[in-house]
């Protein structure tokens, strides 16, 4: 129990405040102390741009403006996902390629070979996407 709560309960015991007033005061303290405040964005310690050297470990998506969003995704997820594509049954892969083609992404996932995955990951180090949306938000995607 923290000092503020003790003081309020003490005042209630001494009759200086009513039970209703005590409840109101305890509620107001509760909003400040019950749940630890999440880390404010932009997240401290996260890189703000692509790393100059080394193999990238994470993909970062940063949205700044009216909304603030920071997303950190391990590239291991991408690596494992790409490896998984080589094991998808041919019939399912045909359906995936057809659906992607219909959605305007006409590339064959079969062309991604497991031996190329590391090269793809490595080359992501040089990738940086900057988008300025109509509502004023800046979106930045990079790997570091």
């Amino acid at each position, binding site marked *: 129990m923290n000092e503020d709560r003790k003081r309020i309960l003490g005042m209630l015991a001494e009759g200086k405040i009513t039970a209703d007033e005590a409840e109101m005061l305890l509620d107001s303290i509760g909003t400040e102390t019950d749940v630890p405040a999440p880390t404010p964005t932009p997240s401290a310690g996260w890189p703000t741009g692509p790393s100059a050297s080394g193999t990238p470990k994470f993909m970062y998506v940063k949205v700044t403006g009216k909304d603030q969003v*920071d*997303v950190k995704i391990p590239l291991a*997820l991408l690596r*494992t996902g790409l490896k998984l594509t080589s094991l998808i049954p041919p019939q399912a892969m045909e359906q995936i390629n057809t659906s992607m083609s219909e959605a305007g992404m006409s590339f064959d996932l079969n062309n991604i070979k497991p031996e190329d995955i590391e090269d793809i990951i490595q080359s992501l180090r040089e990738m940086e996407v900057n988008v300025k949306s109509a509502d004023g938000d800046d979106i930045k995607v990079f790997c570091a």
Partner: protein
Amino acid sequence: MSAYLPPLVIDVRVKEEDSRGFRIWLPLFLLWPLFFILLALALVGTLIADFVLLLGGARYHHHTLLVLRSLGLLAAARGTHVRANNDGTRVNVDIY
């Protein structure tokens, strides 16, 4: 082996400007025993299916690998962090 370990914990924190907010700490590791039993059963099934397909001369007989790689995909989600802030509402999602 750690490449195949599913996430241990998912931590979700929501804090609104004028309310108490809440925190959900999901100890996924408690579900691991059940998960691994189901996984073992699935692997037995896929091993038998792959063996039969291999004997039958089918070109595709990688269902067991597909299940294992899917497990790897789940495991690779560890280390994902999301921080969002909109109109005084802050949401943090962390997967460990």
